[in-house]
C-alpha cells in the first residue's frame, strides 16, 4: 500500500508498504530516517519515540497505514521543531538536517552532550523526543516529574544520573533564555 504523511515538516510518500509494517520501519528503511531506534519493537524501551500529531508515541507500535495524512516529528527534526517553538511560529517547511560541527541543536540536545548523558547513544533519540516534550509542557520539572516523564525510556549505559543532569540543565537554560 501507499502511505502519505508529513515528517519533520516535509511531505513524504512511501510506496509498496507491507500492511504489517510499523511507522518505525517506514521511517528507518524507506525514508532514510534511522534516527528513531529499533531496540525492542514492543513498546518497552521508548527508543523509537516520535511525536505523532504532537504526541509522543512509540513508532514501533503505530501501523504504517495509521499515519496517513498525519504529522510526525523525529529526532532528526527536533532541532527545527524546538527552534520554531521558541520563535513562536510555524516555519513554512522543514529542511534537511545537517551533520557535525556547526549544527544547530535544540537546548535538550546540547544539554545531553554537555552533561555526559550520551554513551552508546541508542536510547538517546527517544529520550530527547520525550524530554523535549516534557519540557514543553512542564518547564520547571521536579526530579520526580523528570523520572516519571522518562520512565518509558530505557537506558542501559548511564544509570540515568547524567540524563537527569541533562534535563535539569536544559530546563535551567530554557529558564534563563526566557
Amino acid at each position, binding site marked *: 500500500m501507499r502511505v502519505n504523511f508529513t515528517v519533520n515538516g516535509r511531505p513524504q510518500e512511501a510506496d509498496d508498504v*507491507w500492511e504489517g509494517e510499523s511507522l518505525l520501519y517506514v521511517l528507518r*528503511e524507506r525514508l*532514510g*530516517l*534511522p*534516527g*528513531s*531506534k*529499533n*531496540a*525492542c*519493537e*514492543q513498546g*518497552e*524501551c521508548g*527508543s523509537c519515540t516520535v511525536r505523532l500529531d504532537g504526541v509522543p508515541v512509540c513508532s514501533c507500535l503505530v501501523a504504517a497505514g495509521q499515519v496517513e495524512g498525519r504529522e510526525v516529528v*523525529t*529526532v*532528526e527534526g*527536533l*532541532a527545527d521543531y524546538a527552534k520554531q517553538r521558541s520563535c513562536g511560529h510555524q516555519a513554512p517547511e522543514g529542511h534537511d*538536517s545537517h*551533520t*557535525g560541527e556547526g*549544527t544547530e*541543536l535544540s537546548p535538550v*540536545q*546540547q544539554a*545531553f*552532550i*554537555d552533561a*555526559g548523558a*550520551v*554513551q*552508546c*547513544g*541508542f*536510547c*538517546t*533519540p527517544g529520550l*530527547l523526543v520525550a524530554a523535549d516534550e516534557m519540557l514543553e509542557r512542564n518547564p520547571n520539572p*521536579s526530579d*520526580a516529574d*523528570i*523520572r*516519571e516523564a522518562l*520512565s*518509558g*525510556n*530505557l*537506558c*542501559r*549505559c*548511564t*544509570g*540515568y*544520573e*547524567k*540524563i*537527569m543532569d541533562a534535563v535539569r540543565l536544559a530546563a535551567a537554560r530554557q529558564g534563563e533564555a526566557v
Partner: protein
Amino acid sequence: MSSPNGTPTKITQGSKTKGGIGESTLRPDGTLKVTGEFAYSSDMWHEDMLWGQILRSPVAHAEIVSIDTSEALALPGVYAVMTYDDLPTAVKNYGLEIQDTPVLAHGKVRHHGEPVAIVAADHPETARRAAAKIKVEYRELPVITDEASATAPDAILVHEGRDDHHVGHVPHPNIVHRQPIIRGDVQEASKKADFVIKGEYTFGMQDQAFLGPESGLAVPDEDGGVHLYIATQWLHSDLRQIAPVLGLPERKVRMTLSGVGGAFGGREDLSMQIHACLLALRTGKPVKIVYNRFESFFGHVHRHPAKLYYEHGATREGKLTHVKCRIVLDGGAYASASPAVVGNAASLGIGPYVVDDVEIEALALYTNNPPCGAMRGFGAVQACFAYEAQMDKLADAVGMDRVEFRQLNAMEQGTIMPTGQPVDSPAPVAELLRRVKAMPLPPEQQWLAAGEEADVRQLPGGLSNTTHGEGVVRGVGYAVGIKNVGFSEGFDDYSTAKVRMEVVGGEPVATVHTAMAEVGQGGVTVHAQIARTELGVAQVTIRPADTQVGSAGSTSASRQTYVTGGAVKNSCELVREKVLELGRRKFGSYHPAWATAELLLEGGKVVTDGGEVLADLVDVLEGESVEVEAEWRHRPTEPFDLRTGQGFGHVQYSFAAHRAVVEVDTELGLVKVIELACAQDVGKALNPLSVIGQIQGGTTQGLGVAVMEEIIVDPKTAKVRNPSFTDYLIPTILDTPTIPVDMLELADDHAPYGLRGVGEAPTLSSTPAVLAAIRNATGLELNRTPVRPEHLTGT
C-alpha cells in the same frame, strides 16, 4: 600530597595542553548521536540489499532428523536458503577459545534458539515467511540443566569427542574447565577459627540487554571477498573466526565498525556475522540482518548463573582464618568465554581480603541451557555476591560492625593473592569503605517531602500505587569487590595504534587510527585527549575503526583505556620523537636547546621544559607527515597452575565499594533503592565525566540483577521463558536512585598515566550492597539474586 594508600601520577608533557587527559572533554560523536545521524549497525542500508533471517531451534536438545527447504526456496522474493550442508568449507564451527559452536546446527541442536538455517529475501517479512516454511524434524533428547544431570555417570555428553585443551584436566566431559586454587593449609588454619560460617548461594542468569540489537550489513566485494559493517567488541577476533568458515583469506574479509548500541560482554561472541557474509556471498547481493528483541535474547551469550558454596572462618578478634569455596558456573551449550570466566571466579573468589589459607574450586558446566560467556564483571560478579554475604554473616557472628570487619581484613598493596601473586599497586579497600560510609545518608521518608499526600514515585511500587508508606522499612548495606583489568592468564593482550601528524589547513593535526570498538564507553574521547596531551595539538581526528589497522583487542575486561589508550600514548610518543628529530634536522642549528634541553610539544609548538619556544609545529612539519603504527602490550601474565592455581595471572586489579540504601515494602516484598553511593579508585581519571558515567552505569546493572533481572529457563525443558523486554526487566529511571560517586586517583605505576580500568568494578559490589540493605530491612537471609517479591514475603 602523599597518603598511606598511594600517590597520584605526575605528568609533564602536555600538562598545559587544552583538551588533554584529566579534562572532561565532550564526546566527538555526541552531535551525531543527538541528531539521530550516528550510523549504528542496524541503520546500514544499501541499494538492492536483501534481508537475512535465521531459523532457530524451538527445542533445547534434539537430533535433527531432516530438514526440507524446498517450500521456502520456492517462495517469491527468496534468494537463498542455507543449512549446514551449504557451508562452503571444512571449517564449520567457531568459538572464542574452543571452536565448538556450529555456524548452523548439524545433526543436533544443543540449546533453545540455536541457529538451524538462514534465509535471504527481498523484505524481512518474506524472509520470515520463508523461514517458517522450512520443515525441520527433531527427535528430542533428555536435557542436561544442572551439575547433577551434567556429571551423572551415564549423562549424555553435550559435546562428544572433545579434543580441546581443557578436556585432559576436567573430571567429566560435561565440564568445560575447572580451576582449583590451593594456598596454605585450610585444615590447620580452620582450627584457629572461633566462628565458622557456611553458606550456599545462587546467582541468576543475567542478560547484557544492550539496546542496539545484533545487526550488520555484509556487502560482496568484486574480488570475491566481503565487506562487513558490524557492531562488535573486537573486530580482529571476529575476523579470525569468520574468514575460515567463508574459505577466504583474512585480507578478503574487510570489516568496519558501525555504531554499537552497547555491548557489556554480549558482543564478544559472534552472532549474525558469518550468516550475513554467507548469504551475501551466496546471493552476490548485500545482506542486512537485524535481530528483534526476542531473537536478541537467543543471539548472544548471557552472564553465567552460578551456585556458590562458601565456608569462612574468623577469630574472636575478627581476623579471617580461612576460606573454602566451590563455584559452579553454568556455561550452557557452548564454551564461549567460560574457561576465562572460571579463571576469574577462582582467582578473585575470596574478594579483596587477606586470607593466607584458602581452597577454591571453580568450574563451568556444559549443559543444554543457553550458552553463557562474557558480561561486565566476568566471573568476579557471582563470587562477590556470595563472599560479601558471608562477610556480613561473619561480622555479625564476631559481633563487629560490618564495615569495620571488612576494613580489618582488607587487602592492601603488598597483600598476596590466593594465586600467590602480590598486589603491586595501591589497593585502598579499607579507604573506599571508609569513604562510602562517611557520605551523608539520604533523608528519611522522602515520599512526604512534597506535602501531606504521599508521592508514590518515591515509594516501593512507584506509580503502581501499592503503598503510601505502609509496611515500608529502610535498610542500609555495604559491599566491596575486586576485579582484574585486562586479559589474564598469559594471554598476549596487545593493542595497535596508528598515529599520524601533519599540517592540514595551516594547523598541526594528529590522526589516530585504531581498531578499538567504541561501544559507548568513550574510548574515542580519550584517544583524542591522549593525542592532544602527547603531541601538544588542538586538532585530533579519530579515524573509524576497521581491520585496515592492527588489532586493538577487545572492548572488555575494563582494558581499552589501559591497553589501546596505552598503545595510542606509545605511538604518540614515537611520533613525537620523530617530530623532534625532524625539528632538529631543520632548526637544530638555530638554538642550542634543540640538542641539550628536554623538549616538549605544547600548544602547537616545540618548547623546552623551561617554556622557551623553539619552533612552530607547522614549520617543523611543513611538507612532511610523520606516521607510526605500533603494537603495545602490558606486562606479561602467566597461566594459573592447573592443580594449585598459583601464578602471576592478572596484570592489574580494580576496586569499588558501595553503600546501598533501600526501602522495602515488607508486606508486598517490593523494593525501592533510594541511593547507591560508590567509592572507587580509578588510578587516574583521563576523563572524569566519562569515568563517573561508567561507574553509575555499572552500578545500575548491578542493581538490576539484585532486584529484577533474570533470564528464566524452564528446568524441565531448558527453554527460555521470558525472552522479551516485557518479562526480562531492566531498571527504568524510576528504579534507579541517585548514585553519588567518590573517586580516588591513586596511581598504578605500571599503567599508562597510572590509570586503572574502571568499567567493571562497580558492577560487582552494587549487587551485594543492595542485597545486604534488603537483608538489613527485612531480617531475611536471602541467599539468591535476583530477589523476588516471593522471597521477601515467604510466599
